[in-house]
C-alpha cells in the first residue's frame, strides 16, 4: 500500500503530487494524504490519477500547520499501516516529512529519482555528483518507508476514473511546535513563462561578469519565448531572485532546449538541468564541466556570442 502526500496548490493538486501518484499506483494500491481544502475537482483529479482513498487534512488559517499535519499523519499511519509514503522535494512536504520522521523514528531517503518494489524490499535510486552517478539504497528499518522525490522524476499520467473515497481528518493541536503564525502572504509576479513549464530556457552564471549582463540572457529569451534561469552562484550574489535558480537547491527542469551561458556546470547546477533534451553551452573555459553534458558546446566569450545571437534571432 503506497501513500502519496500532496499539497493543495490553489485548489488543485500540486504537479509533483500527480507525478508521484502515477508512480505510486504502479507500486500497489495508492492513497493520498491531501494537505489543503481541496475542491471537488481536485478530488476528481486525484481519482483520475489512481487514488483509492483521499485523507484530507485542512490547512489552518494563519499557521503553517506542518507540525499538526505530521501529528495527524502519524495517527493515520498507526491506523492504516502503509508500506511507504512519497513526499515531494518541496518546501511544505519537507517540513512535514522531517517532523514525521522524527515522530516515528523512521529514516528518510531524500532526493529520490526512482522507487522500485520487489517483495518486501524497497529500493530507492538517487543521483549524486551532479547526476553522473546513481546510488541505490534500501530501507532496513520496518515500514512505513519515507521517501522524498525530486520533481519531474516521473511523468504524470491519468490512469483511473473512479471517484476516490474522501476521508476528512481534523488537524490536532500542534502545541508549541505548531505555534507558528502566518501574518502575511506575498506573491511575487514574474513575467514570461514559468521555469518548470517552459519549452526553452536560457540560463546565466558567474561568467556573465555582472548583474547587469543578465539583460543579455533576457534578450536571448524574449524572441524564443523562453524562461530565464540562473545558477546558485549568481542568485547568492544577489544578481537575480531565488525563483530563477536551477539546480539542487533550486528548480529541476527538463525543457526541449536549455541554453547555458557563462555557466561552469557545478554539480549542484547539473543535477537540475542535465535531463533537458538539447543542451547548448557557451563558456570561455574549454574545460568547463558543462561541456560534458552539452550537445553543442561553444568555447568562446558570451559577450561576443550572445549579442550576435540576439541580432540573428531578432532578424527572423
Amino acid at each position, binding site marked *: 500500500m503506497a501513500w502519496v502526500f500532496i499539497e493543495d496548490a490553489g485548489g488543485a493538486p500540486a504537479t509533483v503530487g500527480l507525478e508521484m501518484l502515477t508512480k505510486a499506483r504502479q507500486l500497489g494500491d495508492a492513497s493520498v494524504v491531501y494537505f489543503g481544502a481541496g475542491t471537488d475537482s481536485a478530488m476528481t483529479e486525484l481519482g483520475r490519477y489512481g487514488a483509492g482513498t483521499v485523507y484530507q487534512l485542512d490547512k489552518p488559517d494563519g499557521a503553517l500547520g506542518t507540525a499538526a499535519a505530521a501529528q495527524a499523519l502519524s495517527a493515520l499511519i498507526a491506523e492504516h499501516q502503509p508500506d511507504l509514503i512519497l513526499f515531494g522535494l518541496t*518546501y511544505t512536504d519537507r517540513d512535514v516529512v*522531517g517532523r514525521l*520522521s522524527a515522530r516515528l523514528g523512521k529514516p528518510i531517503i*531524500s532526493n529520490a529519482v526512482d522507487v522500485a518494489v520487489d517483495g518486501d524490499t524497497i529500493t530507492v535510486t538517487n543521483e549524486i555528483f551532479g547526476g553522473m552517478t546513481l546510488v541505490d539504497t534500501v530501507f532496513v528499518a520496518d515500514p512505513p518507508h519515507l521517501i*522524498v522525490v525530486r520533481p519531474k522524476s516521473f511523468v504524470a499520467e491519468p490512469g483511473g476514473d473512479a471517484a476516490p473515497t474522501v476521508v476528512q481528518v481534523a488537524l490536532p493541536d500542534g502545541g508549541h*511546535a505548531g*505555534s507558528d503564525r502566518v501574518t502575511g502572504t*506575498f506573491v511575487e509576479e514574474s513575467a514570461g513563462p514559468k521555469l518548470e513549464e517552459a519549452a526553452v530556457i536560457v540560463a546565466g552564471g558567474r561568467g556573465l561578469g555582472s548583474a547587469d549582463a543578465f539583460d543579455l540572457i533576457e534578450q536571448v529569451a524574449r524572441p524564443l519565448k523562453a524562461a530565464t534561469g540562473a545558477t546558485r552562484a549568481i542568485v547568492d550574489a544577489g544578481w537575480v531572485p531565488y525563483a530563477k535558480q536551477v539546480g539542487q*537547491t533550486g528548480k529541476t527542469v527538463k525543457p526541449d532546449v536549455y541554453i547555458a551561458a557563462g555557466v561552469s556546470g557545478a554539480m549542484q547546477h547539473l543535477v537540475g538541468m542535465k535531463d533537458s533534451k538539447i543542451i547548448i553551452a557557451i563558456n570561455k573555459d574549454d574545460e568547463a564541466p558543462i561541456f560534458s553534458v552539452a550537445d553543442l558546446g561553444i568555447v568562446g566569450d558570451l559577450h561576443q556570442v550572445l549579442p550576435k545571437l540576439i541580432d540573428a534571432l531578432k532578424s527572423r
Partner: protein
Amino acid sequence: MRIAVCVKQIPDPASPYELDPTTHFLQRPAEQVLDDTDRYGVEMGLQLAEQTEGTVTLVSMGPAGNLNGIRQALAMGAHKAVLIDDESLRGSDSLTTARVLAAAIEREGFDLVISGTESTDGYSGVVPQQMAELLGVPALTYAKSVSVEGSTVKINRQTASGYDSVEADTPVLVSVTAGVVEPRYPTFKGIMDAKKKTVDQFTAADLGVAPDSGQTIVSVRPAPERSSGEKVVDEGDAHLRIVTLLEQAKVI
C-alpha cells in the same frame, strides 16, 4: 539570546568528490572547508546575538580533521563550538544526524537554533525539520530574512510563488536560505582569536544517542551517459550554429 548555529565541514566542492569503494561513504580529507551555505546562518546568528547581547555556539557533526571549517566560522565571530566526531556516525542518515545535533543543542541550552536549509555535500534537506520536532519547537523554514522582537522571531519564508511572513515565540528553529544576510569576511584578529576559542568534542555515547541508520546503500553505478555532443571554438560565427540547432529543434 542563546543562539545555536548548525554548521558542517565539507570536502572542498571545487575538487572532485569520491566515494569510499567499500562503505560508499563520501571520502573526507583532513582539510575540509566550512559549507559555504552555512556562512549565512553564522552571520544571521552573529547579528542577532549582537542585537540581543547573546551568544553564538556552533554545533557540528562529522570528522574533526584539522578543524579548518569550524575555525572559519569561529573567525567570523562565533563564541565557541561543539563538535561531535565519532567513527560510528560515519555515513549517518538524516535522522541520526538530527538526533545528534538536537542532543548537543539541548545540552548547551538554547533560545534560537539557526541552520541552513540543506548541506552542499549531503543535501537531504530535512535535518532542520527533524531537529525541530525532536526539540519540540516551531520550525520557521527557508527564511529570506529574520528579525527578533522581544521573544518573538519573525521571518519571511520562501514559497513557490513568493513568500509568507511567519513568526513564533522562542524557543524556535529557523532555517535560512543563502542571501538572508551578507556574510562578513573574517578579520585578521578574528582569525587569530579563532585559534584560541573552545571547541568541545563529544561522541554519540556522550550525548546518549545510539547510531542507527535505517538504510543501506546496495549499489553505486554510473548514470547512463548522454551521447557526446560537439564542441566548437567560436571564431566569430558560432551563434549561427546555435540558430541552426534551434531550427532543428523546431523552437524557432
